């Protein structure tokens, strides 16, 4: 019962850290932001950290012989320690990219660059495994890698409860499988995928496991050692951090063997006119002057989340989800996609309302100050599987509270009246 779950965080107090909540929407509406699955809002500490880097420390990292370059490098590398601590990985295993999308493409392209003899080399007869609930960012790069290498793409299906069907795990992850790329939490259904059996089977057949942790790392405690995966990607901007920064974590010995993807400055060890060799990990994967201010901002973001507490954030989102699911249960025209229980799910709820297209629902809610996402959420195969063209999605974060949930429940009812009574 939702009413018996107490909120672990005070959303309205937390909103005071986020200046965007001072503004109003569509005239004079309070901003009810239920679209953190797309991108999160930013606290002052992150905005300040990013701005202060430009104000005080800006210089090209790892390059200049001057004080600013030292300070910039220090700020940049400190963020790497923060990320490593946050994920439970080693500091040299943290690679900064521009986004999770780039992290996943980095992997797919690097695998594609591996010569025969390298453990990441793919060829006809090999298999890449994904799932039906992947975001396009963790599907399309693998489709393309399969096409380039002749490997076969296979996938786990979804069952009627919005969970992966793992009953055929051994026939999906065959002995020929080299890569298993999977989302940790679905950005559409909220489903959190159980990894233990998948990781075990993948490792049994010598495959690596790539985890798209975009929707989990910002919302719950994620420890790469405990999960046992081999690579993990997430985006700064969904974790109260800046846009333009993402992370790829990989096991050190795997990153050592993995060929680079982007070539250029900073990623080399030595260069002659005809030939180059690569710097050690992580620099091998960070070509060019990186997004320094954004990396520094990401450090501040993860510190902010750690101070609040990831377990508390997850519990808080579950309490909000519970309240929403219960509220929707009383509305017979609302159909929920994804798990109905609270076990192994996060704070994302996708739904459809009878006779109201999601786009119209989103527009109506917007007129009430409520920001939701509508469409296929960059997971078109999943949306098709659900038998719809689009859904409406509410996604929660630490700054939401019960009043936001109640506003959404009321907003949906108001929309039914608006479109139904005319």
């Amino acid at each position, binding site marked *: 019962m939702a009413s018996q779950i107490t909120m672990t965080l005070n959303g309205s107090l937390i909103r005071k850290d986020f200046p965007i909540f001072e503004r109003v929407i*569509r*005239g004079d509406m309070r901003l009810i932001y239920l679209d953190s699955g797309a991108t999160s809002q930013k606290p002052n500490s992150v905005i300040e950290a990013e701005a202060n880097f430009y104000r005080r420390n800006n210089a090209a990292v790892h390059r200049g012989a001057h004080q600013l370059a030292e300070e910039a490098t220090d700020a940049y590398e400190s963020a790497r320690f923060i990320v490593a601590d946050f994920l439970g990985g080693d500091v040299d295993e943290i690679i900064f990219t521009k986004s999770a999308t780039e992290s996943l493409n980095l992997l797919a392209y690097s695998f594609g660059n591996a010569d025969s003899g390298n453990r990441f080399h793919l060829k006809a007869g090999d298999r890449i495994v994904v799932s039906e609930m992947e975001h396009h960012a963790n599907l399309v790069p693998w489709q393309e890698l399969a096409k380039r290498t002749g490997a076969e793409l296979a996938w786990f299906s979804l069952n009627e409860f919005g969970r992966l069907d793992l009953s055929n795990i051994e026939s999906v992850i065959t002995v020929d499988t080299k890569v298993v790329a999977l989302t940790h939490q679905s950005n559409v259904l909220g489903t959190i995928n159980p990894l233990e059996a998948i990781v075990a089977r993948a490792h049994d057949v010598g495959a690596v496991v790539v985890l798209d942790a975009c929707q989990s790392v910002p919302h719950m405690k994620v420890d790469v050692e405990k999960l046992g995966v081999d690579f993990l990607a997430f985006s700064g901007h969904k974790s109260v951090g800046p846009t333009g920064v993402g992370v790829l974590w990989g096991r050190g010995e795997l990153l050592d063997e993995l060929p680079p993807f982007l070539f250029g400055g900073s990623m080399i060890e030595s260069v002659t006119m005809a030939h180059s060799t690569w710097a050690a990990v992580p620099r091998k994967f960070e070509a060019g002057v990186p997004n320094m201010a954004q990396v520094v901002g990401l450090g501040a973001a993860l510190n902010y989340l750690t101070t609040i507490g990831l377990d508390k954030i997850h519990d808080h989102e579950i309490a909000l989800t519970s309240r929403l699911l219960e509220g929707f249960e009383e509305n017979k025209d609302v159909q929920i996609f994804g798990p109905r229980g609270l076990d192994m799910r996060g704070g994302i709820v996708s739904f459809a309302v009878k006779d109201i*297209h*999601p*786009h*119209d629902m989103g*527009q*109506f809610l917007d*007129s009430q100050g409520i920001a939701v996402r*509508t*469409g*296929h959420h960059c997971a*078109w195969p999943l*949306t098709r599987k659900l038998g719809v*063209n*689009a859904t409406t999605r509410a996604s929660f974060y630490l700054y939401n509270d019960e009043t936001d949930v109640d506003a959404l429940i009321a907003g949906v009812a108001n929309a039914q009246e*608006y*479109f139904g009574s*005319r």
Partner: protein
Amino acid sequence: MQLDSLYQEVILDHYKRPEHKGLSEKSDVQVHHVNPNCGDEITLNLSLRDHLIDISWDGVGCSISMASASVMSSLLSGKTLEEAGPILDSFVSLMQSKGTQTGDEEVLEDALAFSGVSKYPARIKCALLGWMAFKDASVQIQGR
């Protein structure tokens, strides 16, 4: 309510009772358009009978995209391609006007109801879905 400028009566009527919906068995050309942002889809059949436009369509999408396809097909059916061109141009221009144009009722008739859409940038593509499908089909039919 500000929203009423978007969801005008005409639009909701066409959404609930779309015209020319249901694909004809035969057609001179058939096109299929999708809005990759939201997944809305339309299939449009276009034929010319004694130079007069005959449209039928089917699709799934929001009220704006479906109503717009309905209004477009009833407005353009029975006209010649030469007559349809300026109407199409006028509608596209209205949609891209960011709310600065009111549109010519003589030309646009019921399609004028979509003038409010131009103030909602995310919905312009919805309103144009059917019209762009028609444009594509008319180019193809002229190329034959």
